């Protein structure tokens, strides 16, 4: 539609321009016709050279002008052609008039010449008037064309203005209304959201930028709501943690209190144990000493059964003394100060192995000790622990003709785990929980001597180093003690 109107305007304007051009040319023709008439009149009156020459110049000019014009309207072109023909006749008549006035035969009949002149003049005037009327008519027609073209162009412009402005205005009003409505919805929506109702959604579905904006606001509200919910949850969690921390703190305080109480109780107990052990040693020594004196001084007066009793008394008191020593050791391990230094565990193991070999050179026991195993710890305590463990292994392999004791290190979960492994009598894993309890024994003292304090002491040393200790084994398959530091 707009292309059609645009083309129509273009062609209308072109036609108008053409009409203007033609109008201008036709006005010049009209002017030429008037000039020709003036020159004819002037020549008829005065028969002078000037109007004659000017007539001919003007005639040539007008002829060229007419030849250069092509009019669309056939009626106008016909009139133009007629003006051209009339001007030709005029020129012919004019030249005949000139020739009549300037006869080649001066001796001609003057009366006839005068009559001819009069006739030619009459015709010239008629022709010029005719031509003038035609030029005037042509100009009117072209002017009418110009007016029509102007009206047509104006109508087209009016049409364009009406048929573009009105729809544009309608579209503009509609758009404004739509925008205003959308903006109002947006404003109300954002006010609701701004008041804290994050569950509210604007929900505008218009397919434009405002619709997009509504979507963005809704999305933003959704995000905001999610963040706000998380914040609430976070707040709740913080409060819970605070409560937990307070609980922990309270428990910790309770624990500290209990620890303090426990430590105090423990100290009291250790002091008590120490004093009891220490105080018990003296009567025990008396019992043993007097039993020995009795045997030595009065052994002959006693029968075999009496002596046996005394021997049992002595053995009991000695075992009790040993028990008391072990208890004192255990007590010392718990109480002694610790100084952490790099400790060469391999060397300690070798020293202990040598000592054991020397204690009973008849035993056939193979020691396999990994070299270069070191750890941070209290050397005295670690040595005590390792002596206990090696001693156990030496003891529980004693009933086998050949034995093997191995000290080494393995890695579990990236941490070094030290172990002492033997191929002795082993034990039933059912009772593994009893092994680290003081005075707990899986074998009778007749089979294997001991007080049952050793492993409890070792466990305490390892625990004091912050490590763990456990035992794996099976009956007649030996046992392996693992510990970490």
């Amino acid at each position, binding site marked *: 539609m707009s292309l059609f109107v645009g083309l129509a305007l273009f062609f209308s304007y072109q036609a108008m321009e053409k009409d203007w051009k033609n109008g201008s040319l036709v006005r010049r023709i009209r002017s030429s016709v008037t000039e020709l008439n003036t020159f004819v009149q002037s020549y008829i009156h005065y028969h002078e050279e000037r109007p004659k020459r000017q007539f001919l110049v003007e005639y040539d000019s007008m002829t060229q002008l007419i030849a250069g014009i092509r009019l669309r309207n*056939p*009626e106008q072109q*016909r009139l133009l052609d*007629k003006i051209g023909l009339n001007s030709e*006749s005029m020129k*012919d*008549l004019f030249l*005949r008039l000139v020739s*009549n006035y300037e006869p080649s035969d001066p001796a*001609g*009949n003057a009366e*006839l*010449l005068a*009559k*001819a002149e*009069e*006739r*030619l003049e*009459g*015709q010239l*005037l*008629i*022709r010029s*008037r*005719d031509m*003038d*009327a035609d030029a*005037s*008519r042509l100009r*009117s*027609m072209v002017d*009418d064309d110009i007016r029509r073209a102007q009206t047509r162009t104006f109508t087209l412009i009016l049409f364009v203005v009406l048929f573009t402005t009105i729809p544009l205005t309608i579209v503009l009003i509609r758009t404004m209304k739509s925008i205003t409505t959308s903006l109002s919805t947006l404003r109300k929506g954002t006010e609701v959201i701004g008041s804290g109702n994050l569950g509210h959604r604007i929900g505008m579905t218009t397919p434009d930028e405002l619709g997009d904006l509504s979507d963005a606001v809704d999305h933003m509200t959704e995000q905001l709501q999610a963040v706000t919910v998380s914040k609430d949850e976070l707040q709740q969690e913080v409060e819970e943690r605070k409560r937990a921390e307070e609980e922990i703190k309270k428990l910790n305080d309770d624990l500290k209190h209990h620890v303090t109480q426990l430590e105090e109780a423990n100290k009291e107990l250790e002091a008590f144990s120490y004093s009891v052990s220490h105080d018990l040693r003296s009567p025990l020594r008396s019992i043993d000493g007097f039993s020995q004196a009795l045997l030595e001084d009065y052994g002959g007066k006693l029968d075999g059964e009496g002596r046996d009793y005394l021997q049992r008394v002595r053995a009991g008191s000695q075992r009790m003394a040993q028990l008391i020593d072990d208890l004192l050791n255990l007590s010392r391990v718990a109480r002694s100060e610790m100084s952490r230094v790099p400790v060469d565990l391999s060397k300690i193991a070798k020293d202990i192995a040598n000592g054991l070999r020397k204690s009973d050179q008849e035993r056939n026991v193979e020691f396999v000790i990994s070299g270069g195993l070191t750890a941070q710890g209290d050397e005295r305590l670690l040595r005590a622990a390792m002596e206990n463990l090696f001693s156990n292994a030496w003891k529980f392999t004693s009933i086998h003709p050949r034995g093997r004791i191995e000290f080494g290190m393995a890695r579990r979960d990236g941490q070094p785990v030290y172990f002492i492994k033997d191929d002795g009598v082993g034990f039933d894993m059912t009772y593994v929980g009893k092994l680290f309890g003081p005075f707990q024994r899986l074998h009778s003292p007749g089979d294997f001597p001991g007080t049952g304090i050793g492993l409890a002491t070792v466990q305490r040393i390892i625990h004091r180093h912050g490590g763990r200790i456990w035992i794996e084994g099976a009956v007649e398959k030996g046992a392996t003690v693992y510990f970490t530091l």
Partner: protein
Amino acid sequence: MNKTMTVLLIAVVLSVNIGCNRKGEHGSTKQQETVIIAVSPQPVSAPLYVAFEKGFFEREGLRVTLQSYTSGKDALNAVIGGKAHLGTAAETPVMIAGLKGEKIYVIATLAESDKYMRIIARKDRGISIPADLKGKKIGVSPGTNGEFFLHAYLTVNHLAKKDVQAVDVLPKDMVDALVTGKVDAVSTWVPHTTTLQHKLGSNALIIDDHGIYVMTWNVAATQDFVKSHPAQIENFLRAVLRANKFIKERPDEARAITAKHIGMDMPMLSETWDLYGFNTVLNQSLILSLEDQARWMIKKEAGSARRTPNFVDFVYADGLKTVQPEAVRISGK
């Protein structure tokens, strides 16, 4: 019920009104006026024949009767004599009527041509250049533009009237007069000129000096008729203008109609058809032409006390001005 009746009544009144207006637009209910037109059967009368044949007169409410006259002079005389309401004539008979003081009006010029008049001469009578006309018998119809054309031709060629022997010949006898050798040449108009060219063949000398005379073919009526029938004059002119349009748009059909009315062969008519500018006008040049010929006529009538009348008073321009204003180019009209 009353409301329905009112609506129906309005509808009936409206449809009656619209019906009346439509009839008025088409003019089919115009009261038919009888108009007699005296026509000289010449090609320049073509607009009247076309308007007649194509029903343009009827459309304008004119019941036209065409009366044929051998010359414009006779046709105008029929108008003056009350035998016809309108008549076609060249400016010469109009000029003569004006000199005589006849109360006539020219209401329009139907056509103009500067090639309408010719002198046809017989070569076998020793005529090969204009000067050879000297002493020859030249057939001419007095009171027609044939006579004026002969005068103009002789004058511009420095010949006096007495140098030739003018013989009165009626227009209808013009062809025979020359063909039979009753005269040596004739000064006449189409279609006689064309007929003579064909009949004489190579024996014909055609003297065609179109610079010296422009023939105008006019429609005239008595002043009484015009004054009492201004609407009919306008209707007549509308029909003629429509005929002019038809002639330009459908020239073949227009030629056929004209040929039928003037009794001329189509090929022969076609030869001269382009010579006539069918353009209904009223130009100042008509006034000048009438005056020019009036002066000639007065001089011809030696001792005449008549003076050149003001021919503007013999022109009725209101009708043409009403139907086509730009067609009128006469100062004071």
